[in-house]
Structures are given as C-alpha cells and as structure tokens.
C-alpha cells in the first residue's frame, strides 16, 4: 500500500489518553484574534465528551485542529500518545453537512466507501471486504433501501447518517463529530444516539460538538464548555464523572 501524504502508521502508546491538548491556541488565516486560546484537554480512552458552546465559540475549530485541518499557533496535540498525524487513520472526523458537495453524482454507498480509502492509499480500489463493511454500516444506520440513491436526493437526516456510516467503516478508535444532531429529524437523532452508544460499548472515544445544552444527557462522561475560544465554567451545575479541561492537568 502507498499511503497518502507519505505518513506512517504508528501504534498507539500504551496507557496514553485518547486525546491530549496542551495550551492550544489557534488563529484562522489572516486574523489577529485567535479562534482558540490556551485550551487544555485530556480525554481518556473510551470516554464520550461533549464540546458545548454557542455558534462561534470555537467548537468546530477545535475539532478541525485535532483532525489536522488547522495548524495550531502554539501548544501541542497528541492522539493515542503519538504526535498528531502519526495516528490519523485511527481518527475519523464527521464534518458539518454544509462542507460537502451533495450535487456530486455518486450514490450513498460510494460516499460511505470513502471511509475505507485511508486504508487503501494511492491507486488501490476498494476490495470485497471494504464493500461488505460499507454494507454493514449502511444497515446500522438504517439506510439500506437508499444505498443506490444519489447523495443530493437524501434528506438532511439521511445525509448525516451516511456521514456517520462513513466514519464507522474507517475502523478508527476516536470519533470527532461536528454537530451530528443539528437540524435532523427525530428518527435520525434516535438512530445516531443508539449507534454512538454501541460505539462506546465497543471502546471507542467520542468527542462531539453541540451548541444545544439540552442535548447533553447521560451518555456523556465529560463536557468542555467554550465561549469565544476559551474554556469557561458551565452556566449551571453539571455533574459528570470525569474532568477533561484544564482541571484534569492539575
């Protein structure tokens, strides 16, 4: 296999946290004001963590930085104990729906198969096993009858489920989810929540952005509140089993 970006696949460091950010500051291109300021984050393996804040709080910026789409101005990120980028195939990222060209003439199944591409690298086509994994994920997300439909003909909720199916077949251990429950139908909310619970049982780590505090209920082990790019105290009393922000480094 000829991997993309010439990157190597490093094994995770034993007993290391799933994700660790130390003093992370991020600027958007050409802007003087930082989008994230001095963010500290430690997420143990197998935990479900919510990133909460209003629009523009820096949730998507933090997820994109961890996913390798943005370069931090200062601070460090480690994924499974390795430098960011050495374990990129173990991290799957679910973007906001608006960031995808839904008019492109491919089917739902072809979109989901893209989750396997990182394991194929340059020039290699999906194998029978890849197709089977895609079929399994499509079934999990209750999309089987729509597998041959052009992606633009799916509803918003179906598109969101297709993107989650793509994340599932990557065989990653960390899921970065950017507002997966935003503006979707109740059926999709229920399916996605069930799938995520199942993923947690399998030992996956979840970091999910949401601007809706009401969405935060029992599945989460910890919450990081953001406001204007900074970690802030929660607006009212929340009781979660683990501390994941700056306190976790104390």
């Amino acid at each position, binding site marked *: 296999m000829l991997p993309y970006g010439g990157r190597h696949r490093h094994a995770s460091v034993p007993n290391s946290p799933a994700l660790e950010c130390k003093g992370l500051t991020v600027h958007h291109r050409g802007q003087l004001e930082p989008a994230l300021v001095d963010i500290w984050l430690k997420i143990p393996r197998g935990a479900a963590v919510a990133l909460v804040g209003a629009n523009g709080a820096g949730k998507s910026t933090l997820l994109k930085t961890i996913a390798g789409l943005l370069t931090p101005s200062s601070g460090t990120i480690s994924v499974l104990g390795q430098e960011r980028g050495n374990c990129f195939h173990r991290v799957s990222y679910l973007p906001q729906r608006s960031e995808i060209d839904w008019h492109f*003439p491919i089917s739902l199944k072809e979109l989901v198969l893209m989750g396997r591409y990182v394991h194929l690298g340059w020039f290699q086509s999906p194998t029978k096993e890849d197709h089977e994994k895609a079929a399994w994920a499509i079934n999990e997300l209750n999309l089987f009858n729509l597998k041959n439909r052009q992606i633009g003909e799916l509803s918003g909720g179906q598109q969101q489920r297709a993107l989650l199916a793509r994340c599932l077949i990557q065989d990653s251990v960390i899921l970065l989810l950017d507002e997966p429950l935003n503006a979707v139908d109740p059926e999709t909310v229920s399916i996605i929540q069930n799938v995520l619970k199942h993923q947690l049982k399998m030992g996956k780590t979840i970091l999910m952005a949401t601007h809706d505090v009401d969405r935060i209920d029992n599945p989460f082990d910890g919450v990081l509140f953001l406001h204007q790019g900074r970690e802030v105290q929660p607006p009212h009393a929340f009781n979660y089993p683990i501390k994941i922000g700056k306190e976790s480094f104390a």
Partner: protein
Amino acid sequence: MNIVSFILEPFSYPFMQNALLTLILVSFTSGILGVYVIVRRMAFIGDALAHTALPGVVAAFFLGWELFWGGLVAAIITSLIISWFSRSQEIHEDTAIGIAFTGMFALGIALMSVLRTFRDLLHVLFGNILAVNQNTLVLIAVVSTLVLLIAFFLRKELVWTSVDPIHASTQGLSPHLIRTILLLLIAVVVTVDIQAVGVVLTSSLLITPAASANLLTKRLIHFTALAVLLCLIGGIIGLYASYYLSISSGAAIVLTNTLIFGFIWTIKMIGKSHGKKNKTTANY
C-alpha cells in the same frame, strides 16, 4: 447520392480519416475530464487555459517547433500559476484566472502582430481538424493515452477530493495536489483540443458535452460515458456538416455540440413541466 455513399464518401479521404481518429481521441479525453470540469465548477479555468496556450503556440511557430509543444508549455505554466494562486489565497482564484487568461491571450495576439503571423496562425485561433497530419495524430494519441491512464488510476482520489476535500485532507490526501494534477491534465487536453477546434472554441469540447450529459444522469459512470459519447456524436455530425456544407470544421463541431445541449435541455424542461402539471392534477 444514396445514404451509404453519403455516409462513407467523406471518410474515403485520408485527411477525413485523420480527423475522425483525432475526434475519437479528443472525445475520450475531453469527455472524461469535462465531467470533473463541470462537477468542480471549473468551466472558466478550461476556457482560460485554452486561451493562455496562444503565446506558446506563436513562440513555437516563430522558433520552428511543433506548435503542440509551445501550446502545452504555456498551458502548463498557466495551470501551475493558477494552482499557486489558489493555494496562497492572497488573490481570489477567479481573479487570478481572469488576469492570467487575458494577459496571456493579449501576449499571444501581440506576438502574432509583431511577427506578422496572423494568417499563418488563424487555424490555431479557430482550429482545423482537417489539417491534422499523421505525426500530429501520433502525438495526440500518445498524449491522450497518458492523460486517460492518469485519470483512470487517480479516479478514486479525483472523486474523493471533489465531493469532500476536507475528509480527504483529514486522511492525509492533499486536495491541492489532486487539483494541481487535474489542472495539468486539463492543460494537456486543451492543447490537444486546440488541434480540433482552435483556441477560441476549445473550452466547448470540455464543457458542452459534459454539461449535456449532466442533464441526463446522476450516476458518475453514466455521466462520464455519456459525455464521451455526446462529444463523439457532436464531433462526427460536425465533420459531416463541415464536409457537405463547406463550413469551418471547428465551428461546425462546436455548433453541433451546442445544438445537442439545447435539444436535451429543451426536452428536459418539457418533461419537467409535464411532471409538474401531472402532479398538480393528481393533487386535485
């Protein structure tokens, strides 16, 4: 004249046989790359690259080189400049294309007037597929095969970075690298297309058949096959029109492609309005 001789007579001439072979090659390269030009909304780039080949062609003519290589070098340089601008983001990409496009085309016209070669290079501006000789045909065949092989082996990456460049980026594949490769492939294809329809009309081979195909299907494989087929059909009808009506071959091919697009679009619009009417009636 019976129908068989009407069909076969034009191709009894070697120059028409060469034109047909060129057309087949051009249909495959333009049809397949045209799909990406349409879905990535790069129509302006295709047009720009064709125009920017002109100073290279003029320089090649002056230096006594094969015109193809002059055009290719100029188009490749332009595609790299556009790619660099789109990465640096200091200037909007369409602004950069607009500047490079008009500047290079003006340079080509200026060179033509300085060298007093307007008449010699008129076929470069408006194309003459009937003038493609054996050597040029071999060159086009080799270059087209290379383009098709690269497009085939990179099909997964081309689709991935078109649909979701951010996802590709998170998995280590640089969308910018794929875009640069695509621009270079388009540069090669427009240089080939210039042989058929000339600098001014080249972008229509890339854009019009693929745009027609886009109206008919929502599956990439069908879209690509139809783009190739429509490019070929338009080209062959254009060749017949050129032969029997004695009109410029480049113009005849482009006009046929445009008419095919108009026909498909009209049929689709009529079908749509019928569908709406039936729906409204059903609601009552």
